């Protein structure tokens, strides 16, 4: 069985980092990622089950890993070699017991909740975070009877979604896919769960002006989560949801998913200013403004130095900036954060949420959002594992190529039909050649 294996290799790491400096995802061929013959991972314990992936997405954190630009912070939280892939919809060939205790028949579809918390690691007592249902904050992701790995897809013992050999998952990681929800929708549930968690962590108030920076998968997922959770009374309704998106297709999708306004990133400050009716400092420019007031909450779904700086420049005093996109080492001027008493908070993963005081698994809410918003529309193209270099390159340039989410199709036996934008790329190449 074939799978993609990510090994510890300093020369390959250096090579991919160099190539990726010319564009994210371009270095997959020289990176520590390779196509290999893999065996099904062994079941680590009684509550573990086999999962056969059907679709597995390529996440921004996967790209950062392949590009060699992940923070060294994660060094102790992963174990090599690992099979990437933590956005997974698949089946349980032998049946299983799901996180909510439901017995799943053989062949039932599941979505993976990839965090490897205390229960999955066989730890007892649970760490305080896991005991409180906040598995994303688990303090023991490097401990227990399986090797370190903050999530499936970064752990040497569990396998990952980018493998036709399958992976193994603890019962607490399995969520049955509701009848009628397509695989394309289901594969977006994991990033949606991140978005749901971020939205609920931000605790917005009715009428808040909310800004979202970036409209890749995470930005669009946050947009959908804000709109759908508010529509269901799970959270307060923003007065305005303003999305800054670099590409036209992202703006269209953001609007479809519930943004009040979606516009190019360089116009975001102006839109936030108008919605928040704030003053702006300095002479009025055409592009960016430094706001005296600003948005109540900013979701930074990019995680770069620029996006964090922009977030801090458009958030109101005592507002919140929620880092949803994974940042690395950055240099940011924090004078404004200090002066304006801004809360800069991270939002990672999921666990149990408490909308309206009711304890609800984040993934249950994410399924609600996926079904209502039909987030399968974010899946732009799928690839077989054999074309992983193209897939990673496509994911690395998704925005520019009119795409959002790229995934591996683990059931594809032959190269699938080309996606529309690939055809367009091919036509462009031909035109250039001619």
């Amino acid at each position, binding site marked *: 069985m074939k799978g993609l294996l990510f090994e510890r290799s300093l020369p390959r790491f250096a090579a991919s980092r160099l190539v990726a400096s010319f564009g994210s995802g371009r270095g997959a061929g020289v990176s520590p990622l390779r196509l290999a013959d893999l065996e099904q991972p062994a079941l680590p314990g009684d509550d573990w089950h086999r999962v056969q992936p059907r679709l597995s997405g390529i996440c921004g954190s996967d790209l950062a890993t392949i590009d060699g630009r992940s923070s060294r912070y994660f060094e102790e939280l992963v174990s090599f070699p690992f099979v990437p892939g933590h956005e997974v919809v698949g089946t349980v060939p032998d049946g299983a017991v799901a996180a909510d205790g439901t017995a799943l028949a053989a062949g039932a579809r599941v979505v993976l909740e990839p965090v490897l918390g205390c229960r999955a690691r066989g730890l007892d007592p649970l760490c305080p975070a896991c005991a409180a249902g906040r598995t994303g904050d688990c303090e023991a992701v490097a401990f227990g009877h399986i090797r370190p790995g903050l999530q499936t897809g970064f752990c040497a013992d569990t396998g990952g979604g980018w493998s036709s050999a399958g992976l193994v998952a603890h019962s607490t990681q399995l969520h049955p896919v509701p009848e009628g929800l397509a695989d394309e929708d289901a594969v977006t549930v994991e990033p949606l769960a991140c978005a749901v968690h971020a939205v609920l962590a931000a605790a917005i108030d009715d009428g808040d002006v909310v800004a979202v920076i970036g409209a890749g998968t995470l930005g669009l997922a946050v947009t959908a989560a804000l709109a759908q959770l508010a529509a269901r009374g799970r959270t307060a309704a923003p007065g305005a949801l303003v999305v800054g998106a670099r590409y036209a297709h992202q703006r269209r999708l953001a609007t479809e998913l519930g943004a009040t306004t979606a*516009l190019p990133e360089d116009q975001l400050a*102006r839109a936030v200013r*108008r919605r928040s009716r704030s003053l702006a400092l300095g*002479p*009025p420019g055409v592009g960016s403004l430094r706001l005296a007031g600003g948005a109540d909450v900013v979701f930074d779904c990019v995680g770069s130095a620029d996006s964090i700086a922009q977030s801090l420049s458009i958030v109101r005093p005592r507002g919140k900036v929620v880092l949803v996109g994974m940042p690395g080492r950055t240099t940011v001027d924090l004078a404004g954060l200090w002066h304006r008493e801004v809360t800069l908070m991270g939002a990672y993963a999921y666990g149990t949420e408490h909308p309206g005081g009711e304890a609800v698994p984040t993934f249950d809410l994410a399924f609600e959002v996926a079904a209502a918003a039909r987030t399968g529309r974010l899946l732009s193209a799928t690839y077989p594992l054999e074309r992983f270099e193209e897939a990673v390159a496509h994911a690395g340039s998704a925005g520019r190529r009119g795409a959002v989410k790229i995934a591996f199709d683990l059931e594809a036996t032959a190269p699938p039909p080309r996606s529309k934008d690939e055809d367009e790329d091919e036509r462009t190449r031909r035109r250039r050649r001619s």
Partner: protein
Amino acid sequence: MSPRPGFVLEVDRSTPPILFWHGEGYRLERLPEGSRVVYAPEPLPSVDDPVAAVRHALLHPLGDAEPLPALLRPGMRLTICFDDISLPLPPMVAPDNRQLVIEEVLDMAAAAGVDDVRLIAALALHRRMTEEELRHALGDRVYDAFAPHGLLTQHDAEDAQDLVHLGQTELGEDVEINKRTAESDLLVYVNINLVAMDGGHKSVATGLASYRSLRHHHNPETMVHSRSFMDAPASELHSSNWRMGRLIAASGVKVFQIETTLNTNTFPPAFEFLQRREWEWSLRDRAAYLASTTALRRTPDRLKQQIFHSIKSPHALRSVQAGEVEAVHDVTTSHIWEQQGVAVAGQTDILTMGLPYICPYNVNSIMNPILVACTGLGYFFNMYRGQPLVREGGVVIMSHPTPWAFHPSHHPSYIDFFEQVLTETTDPVEMHKSFEESFATDPWYIHLYRTGHAYHGVHPFYMWYWCAHALAHLGRVIVVGGDPAAVRRLGFSPASSMDDALEMASDVVGPSPTLTHFHVPPLLLADVR
């Protein structure tokens, strides 16, 4: 030889290409045989002695007004208000009409022993003028005598302390104007009436009003029922201003109106070919056209803008009349029609127009896409009496580069209007309902209007409302040579050439349409019968 009246040329095989303005430049277009070209009348003679003419007008007022000296007395409060930078176009060679008139008024006030005199630029919601612009309009002598002492100010429509609500008209329209002017013993208003729309009760009721007042007539409903703005009896905009003006008078505000008209001598000698009929171009005119177009092609946009905005027009004073508002304005209007009126027989399927680099709201600034729309559809389309030059369902073809560019200090709310309103709707009624108030009351725009040189936050809406009649009337609007993205944002169709535009227009008006070219500037008013 006496000046020739306006003229409608029928294009035939021998007709040379016709000049189209194209922003900071111009182009020659060959129009189909049978097309009509409407030319402005040649400039009428100016008054021989402008100072004497002004003095005569002040001493021999129209209507039931007394001569100005009889209205002046020691101890009174006198306020002199004047039109702002939006008039005339292009700005005129010094001395400006405002300077000529105000110097005479001040001389008479001084002779009468009036000490409490204030000068106020009637900005309405326009941007504040710079010192240089004020000096040009008023002359150094007036500026230096008043400005350093805080006696020359600019109307601030957002200064609640300096506004007074005089009441409501019989139709419930709020009348709120500048407090100093309302509480003066005499308000002298000095106009430059470039077109028939200017002046009359509109001077005070609009120029010195607040948003609370202006919103009653600057809205889509009023604009669409102003057919046209140049024909006051058929203009709801003017009816509203007239109701307000009469309420102002009934409230005890004494207005002494001074209106001045100009001839159509619009361009200095180096650009004289721009106001000649093409078949009469001399060798020198052709050389000037060729040299200037060649040079402009190689000139950066910013420099082109500076060159054109430095043009001072040799407009000359054609008439000056003073006294009671309505009596004065009747005479003014007849002078304007005498200078600018051209009789045109019947409507056309396609109306073409070349849009110049300037309109009332971008003097020393950038002609942004919203102003392009307003110049073509708000102003030129409406320069008619009787019926529009183009038939209902017809097509307007405008020539302008329509750059996606804005002056950030002058037009900050325009940027947001373009990015955040026109992306949602181009329907004046819908934007009035959904967006206008939030722009009008936005604290940043208000701050920039009051302290910088920004048009008021609501101003881009007004520009779009000016287009409301044309938008409702036309089947299609095509812009030749414009930035395609900016043109589309306006809801119009971009065309790369006039031939393409005509082909696109044929989809709307059929294969053998009639075509009329509105050859301005120099300005003209079409009397369409």
